[in-house]
């Protein structure tokens, strides 16, 4: 299980980073959300993996609730962040007429 | 729990599993997009419904707590499946422009632009 999750986290991170390195806003936003999945998962597993041990106080065993609490808020915040990024991307596109993120014209070849 | 209930639950589970599999398989197998709509919206819904009831029963038997969420989920699925079907069908008809029979009422299909002469 651990191996699987570790690989999953790695894949998510790699994909997120590759997308974030693209030169257009939308892929970057997608990449960011992928990356935040990875990060959330990572923080979550820092409480180690325990099956059937939800931290609902009854009769033991419980997994570590703290990372869950942190990730929970992180999920909501990352929505807020994505929303802000989206509106900024929109504004940039609508006012500038293109959605390239790099200011200097190093990607002249990919004019739409 | 009594053997009868256990048999019932197991039967429901098996049925659910089969239907779920069939639904997804049909999605893969059927030809036309319109036909493909049927598989998940019907078979899969039945399958998941069955598994829901089974699970609800099982947990009730195990914990003695009746959890009506299971019922709610089932209700929800039965309510929404046709809607998703409708929307998907509309999308399909809008994008892929399959030939649809006339409505017969003279009025065009919902959302269809009247053909300009």
């Amino acid at each position, binding site marked *: 299980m651990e191996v699987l999750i570790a690989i999953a*986290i790695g894949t998510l991170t790699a994909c997120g980073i590759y997308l974030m390195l693209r030169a257009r806003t939308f892929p970057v936003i997608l990449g960011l959300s992928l990356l935040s999945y990875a990060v959330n998962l990572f923080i*979550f597993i820092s409480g180690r993996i325990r099956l059937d041990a939800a931290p609902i106080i009854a009769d033991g065993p419980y997994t570590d*609730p703290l990372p869950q609490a942190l*990730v929970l808020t992180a999920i909501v915040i990352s929505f807020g962040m994505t929303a802000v990024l*989206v*509106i*900024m991307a929109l504004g940039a596109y609508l006012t500038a007429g293109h959605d390239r993120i790099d200011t200097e014209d190093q990607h002249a070849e990919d004019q739409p | 729990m009594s053997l009868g209930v256990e048999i019932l639950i197991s039967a429901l589970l098996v049925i659910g599993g089969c239907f779920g599999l069939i639904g997804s398989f049909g999605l893969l197998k059927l030809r036309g997009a319109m036909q493909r709509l049927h598989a998940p919206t019907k078979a899969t819904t039945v399958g998941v419904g069955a598994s829901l009831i089974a699970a609800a029963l099982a947990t009730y038997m195990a914990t003695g707590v009746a959890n009506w969420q299971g019922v709610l989920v089932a209700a929800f699925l039965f309510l929404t499946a046709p809607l998703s079907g409708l929307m998907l069908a509309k999308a399909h008809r809008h994008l892929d422009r399959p030939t649809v029979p006339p409505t017969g009422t003279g009025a065009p299909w919902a959302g269809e632009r009247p053909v300009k002469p």
Partner: protein
Amino acid sequence: MSLALIAALPFLGALTPALTQRFGRGIATATVALFSAAALLLILQHVPAIMAGQTITTQINWLPTLGLNANFRLDGLALLFALLILGIGLLIQIYARFYLDTSEPYARFLTYLMLFQGAMLGIVLSDNILLLLVFWEMTSLSSFLLIGFWSHLPKARQGARMALATTGAGGLAMIAGLLMLGHVAGGYDLSTILGERAAIQASPLYVPALLLILLGAFTKSAQFPFHYWLPHAMAAPTPVSAYLHSATMVKAGLFLLARLWPVLAGTPEWFWIVTSAGLITMSFAAGVALFKDDLKAILAYSTVSHLGLITFLLGLGTKAAATAAVFHILCHATFKAALFMLAGIVDHATHTRDIRALGGLRRAMPISFALASIATLSMAGIPPLNGFLSKEMMLEEAAHTAPWVIPVLATFAALLSVAYALRFLVYTFLGQAPAYAHAPHDPGAGLWLPPAILAALVVAIGLAPMAMAGWLVDAAASATTGEAVHAHIALWHGLQPPALWMSLAAVGGALVVLGLYPALRAAWDGAHKPDAKAMFDAGMGWLTKTATALTQGLHNGSLSRGFAVGLCSFLALGLYAYLSAPTLPGTRALTQISFAPVVAFGLLMTAALAATALHRKRLLALLLTGIVGLILSASFAYLSAPDLALTQITVEVVTIALMLLALNFLPKTTPRKTAGFRKLRDGGLAVAVGTGVAALAYTLMTREAMFPPISAFHLAQSLPGAGGHNAVNTIIVDFRGYDTYGEIIVLGIAALLIFALTESLLGTRWAVQPDHAAGDEGDAHPVMLQTATRLILPMAMLVGVYLFLRGHNEPGGGFVAGLVFAIGLVLQYIASGQDWAAARRRIPYHAMIGAGVLVASATGIGSFLAGRPFLTSNFTHGHLPPLKDFELATAALFDLGVFLCVLGAVMLALDALARLAKPQEGR
């Protein structure tokens, strides 16, 4: 306390000119003078104690953990400097009042002046070297403002920049040096450091610390080879030159040397570096001064030379030498400040400072002539003036120092100084008067009184040194050397002292030099001289070029490039951390794995990879990302984190709605890019980082925590402490309520920001028309959908309420409930459109956010009423069939705030984007 007050007074004074300027320059000057005078009086009130050998200190702990305390001390040395700063400061204020033209922004000048005074006073009074550093930098800044006061003159700007760059750089070096010093001494208070002589001089850090500190002191005191900035700083108004560049700021470096004399001096390093720097500066600058024609330039180089003299004395490291140094600081301040003021007067009267165009002013300006001759002769070291005394002491010390080159150089420098001093006097006031544009005349008392007072001091100290200055010198010298000093300064020590003969030789030589002046001058003019300014500019240019090149290389406006560079450095760091420490084997048993999770995670990774590969088809990529989120939430449920599952699921759908709204505007596909190597680079980088993270995650998961996790406490306290079974929820609303509180506020701010941006977007004209060509299907709002959603809304709300109420004991809570409500509402928007929904919306979303934050805050504050700290929860249990036992806790109230805030924020964001999509006129 009074010391802190004294240090604060000038700063307070700096505030006044802005208020008092409307009452005229006189009032403004009087006000600031009042502050300086008050400070002076407060200082003087301590004099008896100082004379008794005490040290006044004030302790104010500021950042004790950093060893940064606002401690002030007043001893003899500080007293001497404080008197100079405040006394001459007062004279300068008067002088400036009459010197500056009425058209100048006088209030600003006064403010800068007082700022500088405060900073300077702070340096000499501070007992903590970190505090001293702060004031040190402040002097650099305020002097920058003062030198560049006539900012319309390019020379002023350049001079100011040069001074700031040089002294600032020195200051930086000095910070490092002083930090080392404090580190070695085990404390940053002078009282601590001064006691640690042995430890400091034994430590290996001594030499580097010494070098760095000297760098700071030499740049500030314009010692060779950092002397170049001082002459260029002469572009400042003359009062500034008189104040900063003769009496105070340039002496800050000397002050530091004297201050740290007990711990730093006495070693060969100190002796050779400081002495040679001083000697070279002294003779070299004196030589240059001889060939300058600008009055202020002559004075500037003479100042450099005299500073060199004092440095030289401090470098010798003997008690007597230190005494002489202290005494000369005093003498030089008096006559040099006076000379600067007189130069200003001459400048005013004749509108030139070139001594070749001057002459014969003795008749036109008798008062100035008298004062100038006193000051100049003192500078030349002619008895019976105070300059003579201190120079005698200097020569005396030099005479007793091996090797022979030292006394010779000292005499030579003395000779040169006599020469340039005489030249200064003669060329300006004696000889034939050229034809002046309009007849020069003595200025009003306002201008000549300040230098007169100083000249009087010059004479008085010269005639009765012990009575006038002896006590001060003794106190200062004792404070400098750290042992009681009783100097006996007298005009006449008899015929024995070599100093007498040396100065006689100097005078004779000077006359010879002046006799040969034309020839020497010709040689000088012929000689090729390196231009300090050109070198400086070249150096600065090189620095700027390098910095620009570096920045361009790392981050040339291309965000993705900057990001890539950042990633590389992270990778390097991680690699270093991995290689530098041993990795323990994993002890934790692996969790057994079953079929479905494998499938699910396989699906997740496939979806992620596919989304990456197909990211050009944006809608598809979004769909695939959705799958990732979906499976992630499922796996949260599987990994016994139901709360996370619920949250992730609900956030997922609102995110998708958001992205779809955005994608409606953005291009639906990304154009293909040709740069293949870039793909390669990014891919490699991504894979590397991914691998690293995966390895890290695996290592983390297969090892137990090094120390017991804090959450043991949360689990234990969840029920008794917070009255909730759901540990996650109790952490969110209770244990770490502060985090949540801050977070919902952030969320609200984000939503408001989105709203604001949308508004501005609606206001501006768009460069592109979003292509809505994607869909032109006929019925926007299918009736079936509408009908069904009306049914779904109450169900959703029921679920929301249910999740909210039981949130404290079972998975759920404010976040999820808010999101569920939001989904129900979004569905209405989708089915029936924004107008329809807006028409039926009772509460504006802004209000919802506000209410949420208010409720949360009220809950937090409420616990104050119970006399408990912020956000302490209090609870009882209620029972409301068919629900299980739920919570009536303040925590639940807080959760309500969370709920409202989340709901409002999400809806506000989506609503804003939806309004953007509506067809607008005028674009």
